[in-house]
């Protein structure tokens, strides 16, 4: 959670500054941008964290930025700030996948709560994603024979049955099994099963 940053995008300088102060007071890393274009042009895109986005801005609007981020495959949570009377538009952004919206002027405590939720979720997602990536990179190390043996082990077959099914000796099965357990960094069959299940479960 340490690297997660709150990205504030608002055309009003006072609002930007106040938000920076607020998050700083909570020791949450924060970066502010005066426009959607400035944000898109920066290295912040793709960084971990969440977005606090003003809906009404000159140039590219909040709605447009959201659409652009979706197009780029970003999953960063977006918290929409709206003026009064823009509620219908804010609802549209929620439909398009925004995390939440708050109406200006907002209660700072409520905002902090929403931001923490967003950062938590983002962190969770990020961790799970990282784990899955690690497992997949280990799977990539297995030889085809080792992969076959692993699939049968996970399916709950004994070494003897595996040997018969693959037409190899029990001894050879044992050798493969030792190597794959090593490559997958698992000590026993149950931890192997847990690891494999992780990549098969849905993302959320």
């Amino acid at each position, binding site marked *: 959670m340490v690297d997660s940053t709150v990205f504030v995008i608002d055309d009003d300088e006072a*609002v930007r500054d106040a938000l920076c102060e607020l998050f700083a007071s909570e020791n949450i890393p924060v970066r502010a941008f005066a426009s959607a274009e400035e944000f898109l042009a920066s290295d912040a895109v793709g960084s971990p964290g969440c977005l606090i986005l003003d809906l009404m801005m000159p140039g590219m609007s909040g709605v447009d930025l959201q659409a652009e981020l979706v197009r780029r495959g970003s999953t960063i949570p977006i918290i929409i700030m709206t*003026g009064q*009377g823009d509620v219908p538009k804010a609802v549209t952004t929620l439909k398009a996948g925004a995390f939440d919206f708050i109406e200006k*002027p*907002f209660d700072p405590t409520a*905002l902090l709560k929403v931001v923490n939720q967003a950062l938590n979720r983002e962190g969770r997602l990020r961790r799970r994603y990282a784990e899955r990536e690690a497992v997949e990179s280990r799977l990539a190390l297995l030889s085809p024979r080792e992969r076959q043996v692993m699939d049968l082990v996970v399916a709950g077959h004994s070494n003897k049955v595996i040997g018969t099914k693959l037409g190899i000796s029990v001894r050879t099965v044992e050798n493969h099994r030792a190597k794959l357990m090593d490559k997958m960094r698992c000590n026993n069959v149950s931890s192997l099963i847990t690891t494999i299940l992780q990549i098969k479960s849905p993302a959320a």
Partner: protein
Amino acid sequence: MSKRSSIVEKILAMPFARAVGIAAVYLLAYWGLDWISFIFPAKQLNITPWNPPPAATVVLAFLCGWRWAPMFFLAAFTSNLIARYAPTPIMPTVIADVAEAVIYGSAAVALRRLGLRADLRTFRDVMLFIGVTSLAAALMAISYICTFWAFGYLEPGELVSLIFEYWVGDMIGVTVVAPAFLVHRRHLLSWEWIASALSWEHLAQLGAVALATWIMFFWQDPVVGPLFYPLFIPLVWVAARQGLPGTTLLLLLMQVGLMGTVEVFGISELVTTKLQYLMLALSWTGLLLGAVISERERAREATQLSEARLKSIVEMAPDGILITDDRGDIEMANRGVEDIFGTTQSAIVGRSIGGVLPIAPGDKETVIRRPDGREVTVEAQAATVPIGGRTTSVIAVRDVTARKETEARVRQHRDTVEQAFRGRLTEGLAGALAHELNQPLSAIVTYTGAAQRILATVANVPARALEQLTKAAAQATRAGDIIRRLREFFQGATLEQAPLAISEPIRDMLGLLRDEIERSGTKVEVHVPSTLVASADRLQIEQVLMNLLRNSIEALAETPRGRRRIVVSAAETPEGMVEVKIADTGRGIDPEVAERLFDPFVTTSATGLGLGLTICRSMIEAHGGKLWADRVTSEGAVLHFTLPTTASAATERLDKAYG
């Protein structure tokens, strides 16, 4: 054919049959006239009481010109042999015949040059004819008599009286024959001409002539004197009734009649000659009188014709036209008046203008109540014309009821659109104010929150300080609530989307702005298919169009008049939206302003609030459309907005209901 070509060439150049025909008629006429008039030849020469053959020469020369000159001589020369029973000596006769051809030919050509009309239309024509022919006859008389005197046929003592006698003979011949032929030449002896000659009046006139002739010759012994005067009575009668055409015929008839009587009853030569003097006076009197009468008659006919034309123009005029006398009573009313006043012309004529058209002095318009109860607004214009010492007023009345109604309708429509927009303006102002104030309020609340958090980590902060920060935050939040309530109070009318042919509001708004457009000399082009239907709130779209068009007109103020142009076009987009585009050739959009064009309080106008485009955008977005400006060019501004079509609006509603 050049002017120098010879006379022979000219004759040869004429269509042969026509030339032969003219020659034959001319020769026969010449010989015939010579034959019937060759009576009492003085000194056995061609000095007779009347000598009409030169009339044939004058007519031919006048109508056909000099090229016939050889013919004139030929006719005169041959006539000596054919018509006269005692041929005169050859040499002087040839000389006299040449003189006749030259003198009468010249006279006729001179008449042509002087602009004589062949049908002797005017008094001037008749005077000219008499003057020129008198002169020619005098020259002829002198030439003839002197020639024969030079050859020794005449004594010096008798020359003067012979010259006078010759002059009278030629003069009377030309005067009674040539005008009759010239005036009647086009329809001489045609059936219509003969038929029109047969009438009781003509018979009575002929009877009067016969009676007058009888009185002159047979009342007493043939004495030419006071008894000649009765002949003036039928002459004046004919001249007054039939004008010059009748008079010329009558004179010819009288002359032939007189000469016939002279021959048949053996009237003496002396009497006959004296008779011819009187006859000449009679002829001139008749011709001049006839010409005056004909001229008057023609002038009267022309006046009648132009009066009838004017009357029909007045009658057919779409406006009502009233003519009043100097007391203000209506003398004439045209058919237009009937349509406007809903009554008949005869019901209006004779009434006082004030009763028919009550109009305050200095006013141009008034309302009149028709007999059928309808009220019509009319516009009147009066002109006062002094005619013959009287003051006549001509009043043109136009029904402007329909125009007034249209004007009122246009004004009302415009008021509706503008009033609705003023409502929007308040709403927009409240919204914009809310947005602008919410920013600093947000900042205040957030700053306060941050300060509280920082202070919470510090020891020994007075509790009251923290408490006051909490109060400050609460006040800022309260301000936000006030703004929210204000905004809700001004929340505008609900959107009523219905199928709308987009060409209709465009046409209507251009109509409402016609004054501005015309005053600024702006050319407007519209390319909007009438089949394009959007789902929209008509009043709101009218407000948007009115705003955008007004902006365009304002932006054109700095463009030279000839280049002021607005193009409104519309088309369906691939996404199934109706897109309307308004382009102008105005000053364009300042790049600095372009960024914030749709933000509230951004304006280039000195008087505007800068909310127009903001509100337009919110109205269009409420429809589910978009409003935007093209990236700036120096060629003027282009604004676009889209609206859902009926089909796309339906999908969206379904989405809202089930999505």
